């Protein structure tokens, strides 16, 4: 008996193992890589490895030692990718301005001097005698850093290592997160406002009416997201069908600005996500016994009262899971804002994409991605809990 249970367990494990291994390599590993990138900073230590080792031993007190200077000269004499060197200098400059001229002057002096020849750094540039440049370098050296995570929420560490707010002009991540949240919330509210009555009507109707109401929800769901976005692009443009129609009936004389702005993004996203709201509410309503409303009426409840106390509470679980689903999906939206939105309607996903593909700033892409990932995962777990809760099982 024991052995047959054991065998069944082994067989089950054997069956899920291939997918487990596949997702570990191609789903978990990429996400882990991104997370590691968000807390790793190898830009300076990659270019100045020896200096990194020596500086790690320096306690930061007292004047710069000759050993530090020697290791820096050795590092600077190494052949190095100019792109990586530029990144490292930029990184140092962000700690303390002045490194740009300091590093280029020192690097050319180090390369110009003969092999093995000792160099007096202070003679090349007197700033090397000042410990604060070495301290800035030391701060930029550690492999693990919280600077990207802090920068993702518009914070930074000042010279003494305390967390401080970033200059309002230099970063706009908080603003973009707020905007992402606002767009997702507006879309969720709109979907709920349209989806709840629609699902109620669909559940109350019969025959071909119900079939049409359902097909109208399922067909867009089946249609490519790109096709739907392209369709909205055509409808919303200044010479598009909507503006033409409004002009023809004389409501407007100038085209309404509907595309490349917030209105367009919200209209298109509501269209794309509405099915995710209607379907959970509708399937919840279907399981309500058909005689429940007549029963409430026979007990003397007015229609409004029966609606408020019987139907609405029963639609509530579907409304909740629909709202969570829409909000969760909306948070990560990229394509629709990219195509019908303007510069001020881009959500967090496009900022992540910009850092990754535009500037190859993996640390920032990783840190913002980590925030989006955590929020989405939490919402998903709540959603899973909600749809497994007793009220949902009963429906």
């Amino acid at each position: 008996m024991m052995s047959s249970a054991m065998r069944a367990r082994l067989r089950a494990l054997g069956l899920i193992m291939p997918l487990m291994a596949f997702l570990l390599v191609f789903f978990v590993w990429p996400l882990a890589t991104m997370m590691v990138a968000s807390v790793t900073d190898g830009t300076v230590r990659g270019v100045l490895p020896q200096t990194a080792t020596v500086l790690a031993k320096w306690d930061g007190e007292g004047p710069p030692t000759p050993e530090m200077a020697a290791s820096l000269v050795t590092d600077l004499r190494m052949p190095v990718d100019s792109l990586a060197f530029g990144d490292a200098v930029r990184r140092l400059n962000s700690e303390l301005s002045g490194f740009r001229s300091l590093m280029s002057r020192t690097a050319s002096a180090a390369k110009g001097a003969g092999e093995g020849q000792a160099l007096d750094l202070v003679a090349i540039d007197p700033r090397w005698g000042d410990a604060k440049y070495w301290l800035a370098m030391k701060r930029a050296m550690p492999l693990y850093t919280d600077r990207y995570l802090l920068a993702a929420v518009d914070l930074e560490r000042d010279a003494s290592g305390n967390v401080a707010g970033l200059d309002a002009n230099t970063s706009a991540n908080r603003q973009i997160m707020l905007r992402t949240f606002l767009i997702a919330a507006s879309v969720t509210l709109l979907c709920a406002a349209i989806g709840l009555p629609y699902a109620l009507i669909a559940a109350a109707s019969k025959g071909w009416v119900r079939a049409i109401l359902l097909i109208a929800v399922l067909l867009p769901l089946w249609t490519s997201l790109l096709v739907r976005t392209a369709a909205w692009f055509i409808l919303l443009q200044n010479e598009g069908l909507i503006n033409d129609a409004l002009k023809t009936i004389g409501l407007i004389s100038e085209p309404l600005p509907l595309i490349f702005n917030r209105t367009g993004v919200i209209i298109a996203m509501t269209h794309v996500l509405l099915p995710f709201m209607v379907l959970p509410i509708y399937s919840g309503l279907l399981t309500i016994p058909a005689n429940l409303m007549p029963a409430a009426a026979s007990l003397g409840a007015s229609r409004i009262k029966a609606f408020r106390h019987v139907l609405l509470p029963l639609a509530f679980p579907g409304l909740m899971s629909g709202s969570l689903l829409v909000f969760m999906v909306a948070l990560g939206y990229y394509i629709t804002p990219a195509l019908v939105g303007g510069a001020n309607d881009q959500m967090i996903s496009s900022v992540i994409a910009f850092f990754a593909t535009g500037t190859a700033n993996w640390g920032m892409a990783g840190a913002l991605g980590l925030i989006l990932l955590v929020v989405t995962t939490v919402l998903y777990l709540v959603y899973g809990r909600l749809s497994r809760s007793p009220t949902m099982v009963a429906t």
Partner: protein
Amino acid sequence: MSGQTSPILRIAQIVFGVAVVFFLLAPIVAILPLAFNSSVFLNYPIESFSSRWFGELQSNDMWRRSIVNSLIIGSGATIVATVLGTLAALGLRSSQLPFASAIRTTFLMPMVVPAVVLGVGMQMLYGRLGLANSYLGVVVAHAVLCIPFVLVSVSGSLNAMDPWLERAASSLGASPTRVFRRITMPIIMPGILTGAVFAFATSLDEVVLTLFVAGPNQRTLARQMFASIRENISPAVAAAAFLMIVGTLCIAGLVGFLRWRSQKALKPA
């Protein structure tokens, strides 16, 4: 509850229902005729009907290659996702599997993780693994997204299956392999095929991961449409959209047919 509805409420319901149906369907219907517009602008009015933009899809190297790429990548991703997803669905069915529900939740995660987040991670990892700008890399990335659909679909038909059929077969002396081949597999086939169809549709529509992991040689149809809407709005987009809508209708019809058949199979007269 339609009996005593007041006429005003009834009219309001009809108006609202019609308005929402219009909102949902009008954009999809509106894009279809533009595929046959001879104008170079992706807009109404239609100057004259022509099939020049379908010709463009065929003759323009970018569009033709992107369609071929979509078919190659879609087929690859569908095969990988269907095999792995079906095996996992069979394993997850076992009552002997510890943490089955947590494992299922994890397997469904690719459906909810924002594509941009996964894309950034994949781009970094692919750089190290040497998979960047390769067909294999894109196929694998799409397969990750397709797997949840296969898993849900196959699990659904496994749950609907009468477990006594398998027990009866093995009590009559059939080996587990034989039970699977002769009993389980035929019964869940509609579920597997539905999952595969969903997987293919998912891969066909995928843009974000493709943006991150594919090189110019792996440009898919969806990726090409994205670029075309963004950069030079050519009516070829409408022609491509037309093909995708017609393809979707065929796929939806196929899935409906499979569902109908599986229901007929599960409820023998």
